[in-house]
């Protein structure tokens, strides 16, 4: 393999130059009149033609060089493909060892940030980067169950995120529930533990709504399913906007209680977190705590989906993705299989939503627009359907990338003060998507890891197990 790599066959330059010359000739033909000549008016209103040989030459030269470069790139790439690197093996290894490394990094992340930039600057890095990315990782892992494993294209996943967020927000801010809880468990206890009590409720409610969505779409697949789920997401959002008595409409819900440290609030008061542990009060503790909550929630999502893949229900999901008729002929209850996929996927969306509400302290329908669904789906697809590590990488690139754009202040010096790099995030997002799909049409990590490895090593080379492209 190595010897082969070194003795790469030479690129056929004559063919490339011919090809580029041909492209340049076409460009010349096209642009000679379009660009090469410019109509203009003279002072006495006569139309004259102004030749522009320099511009024309520059364009044709650009086409020539561009075509040459593309041709060279294609030629080298074709050789690379012919050499047949055992790609999928590396990918599977990456998935196997990359995940623990990533998790280890995440656990240490807040402390690392704290020590490098100090408590003042750390909040931004932990909150905007850490927590924000982790929310999307969790949503990506949750949606991955529905889309990646069960193959049900869901464009309305944000609906369950919204259900979770509003469940927590409404429960935690509702006076009747507060009075009721005060009678049963005491007001102080309810205040301290509201998040932890509501979290499972939010998950269960979201799962319930997942099932509710599941029933009407049981017989749909592919594009039709996508349209109905898209509509479902919009319906939930529109209900939240218009049913003002219930959800307070556009104004949203504010003053949502923040999670406590297992009963100890993050306040400057005497019974607060800082005082209890003899620390100086700082908002950073809450941020770090929130970071670890979402980290744990995300890891639970990952652990559950990894475990489920090895259980009959998970295998049924994957089989369902592959061939529904075959599933039925093998006695798999496809109805239950689909409903559990929707319900479990939705449940994790609900958890994430409850966390989101608790972290923000304020929610409104604005946070649950279709763009969110699209972004989560993009994360799953970019990551490579079904790959957990892929979702992590894609979240960091997409979510973290946008945050990074906000940081690029020096660009203002280059492009002038009016330039706000964050405004271009959608453009960059789009370009990245297109490039990604050209470069790796099946996502970053596309090899599917079998759920079982046989004990005896069978001599099956990696490319037999490898994913085909197409």
């Amino acid at each position: 393999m190595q010897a082969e790599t070194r003795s790469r066959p030479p690129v056929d330059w004559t063919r490339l130059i011919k090809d580029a010359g041909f492209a340049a000739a076409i460009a010349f033909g096209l642009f000679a009149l379009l660009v090469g000549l410019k109509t203009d008016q003279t002072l006495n209103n006569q139309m004259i033609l102004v030749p522009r040989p320099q511009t024309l030459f520059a364009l044709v030269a650009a086409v020539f060089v561009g075509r040459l470069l593309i041709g060279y790139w294609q030629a080298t790439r074709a050789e690379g493909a012919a050499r047949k690197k055992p790609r999928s093996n590396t990918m599977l290894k990456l998935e196997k060892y990359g995940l623990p490394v990533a998790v280890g990094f995440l656990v240490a992340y807040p402390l690392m940030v704290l020590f490098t930039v100090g408590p003042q600057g750390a909040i931004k890095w932990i909150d905007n980067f850490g927590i924000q990315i982790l929310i999307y990782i969790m949503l990506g892992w949750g949606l991955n169950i529905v889309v990646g494993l069960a193959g049900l294209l869901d464009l309305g996943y944000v609906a369950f995120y919204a259900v979770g967020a509003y469940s927590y927000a409404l429960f935690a801010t509702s006076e009747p529930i507060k009075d009721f809880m005060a009678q049963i468990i005491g007001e102080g206890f309810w205040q301290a533990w509201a998040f932890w009590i509501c979290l499972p409720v939010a998950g269960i409610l979201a799962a319930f709504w997942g099932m509710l969505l599941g029933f009407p779409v049981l017989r749909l697949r592919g594009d039709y399913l996508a349209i109905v789920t898209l509509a479902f997401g919009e319906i939930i959002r529109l209900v939240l906007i218009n049913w003002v008595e219930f959800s307070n409409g556009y104004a949203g819900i504010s003053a949502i209680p923040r999670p406590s440290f297992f009963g100890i609030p993050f306040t400057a008061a005497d019974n607060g977190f800082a005082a209890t542990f003899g620390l100086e009060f700082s908002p950073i503790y809450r941020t770090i705590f929130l970071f670890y909550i979402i980290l744990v929630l995300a890891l639970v999502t990952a652990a559950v989906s990894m475990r489920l893949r090895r259980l009959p229900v998970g295998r049924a999901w994957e089989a369902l993705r592959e061939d529904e008729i075959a599933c039925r002929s093998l006695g798999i209850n496809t109805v239950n299989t689909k409903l559990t996929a929707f319900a479990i996927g939705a449940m994790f969306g609900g958890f994430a939503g409850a966390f989101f509400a608790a972290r923000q302290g304020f929610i409104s329908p604005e946070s649950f627009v279709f763009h969110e669904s699209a972004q989560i789906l993009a994360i799953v697809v970019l990551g490579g359907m079904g790959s957990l590590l892929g979702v992590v990488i894609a979240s960091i690139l997409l979510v973290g990338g946008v945050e990074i754009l906000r940081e690029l202040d020096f660009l203002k010096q280059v492009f002038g003060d009016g330039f706000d790099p964050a405004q271009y995030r959608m453009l960059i997002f789009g370009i990245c998507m297109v490039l990604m799909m050209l470069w790796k049409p099946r996502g970053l990590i596309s090899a599917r890891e079998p759920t079982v490895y046989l004990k005896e090593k069978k001599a099956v080379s990696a490319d037999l197990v490898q994913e085909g492209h197409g």
Partner: protein
Amino acid sequence: MTMIAEQGAPAPAAARTPLLAVRGVKTYYGNIIALKGVDIDVHRGEIVTLIGANGAGKSTLMMTIFGKPQAREGSIVYDGRDITRMPTHEIARLGIAQSPEGRRVFPRMSVYENLQMGASVNNLAWFDEDLEKVCTIFPRLRERLQQRAGTLSGGEQQMLAIARALMSRPDLLLLDEPSLGLAPLIVRQIFEVIREVNAREGMTVFLVEQNAYHALKLAHRGYVMVNGLITMSGTGRELLADPQVKAAYLEGGHH
């Protein structure tokens, strides 16, 4: 040799109640009728073949037995139980396995995982044992257990489809065109396997085939379906000798 289905079974078998009794089954696709009142008996331990032209309704009958689509009229009784209105996954649990038309393996899953899916009806209870068994029947699968099913050759995929159906330890095996698109040598191999599981384990097999000559030679009894109706039945040998069958389904001469 009769022209009517009910009397088709040989005398000793007719005395017993059939394992699978299809009576007057009518199946529709929307308003289009595909089965116009089909009667079929399959007795325990038999190989029964159903032949017929393209579009006759053979696959529809297979799928109707499995409950998708459901028969609008008539009844299907399996082992004394009426399964006409039962959902497919419950029918599968009664010990019927189906290898549907066109292989339909799970392409992105490994051969091993495909076989696991086959055994999932009975929760992998005899998985290791049965894996060994199907690997003995189809040694090619043993060499390829880790390979993705989608990368198997057509014949290997068909072997996998049959093996997967066998993994559920069915009493009744429904096979829809197992020889579709396979080389003659592989076809013979697959028919040999069908004969073997029938002879050795007494598995009942109901087989739909275009390859009428081989299928009728293999079968104890056979049915001929034309346009959603059974028009002929008899033992395999009787049908093979029948001039009408010869003209319609054996043309082109298999030696």
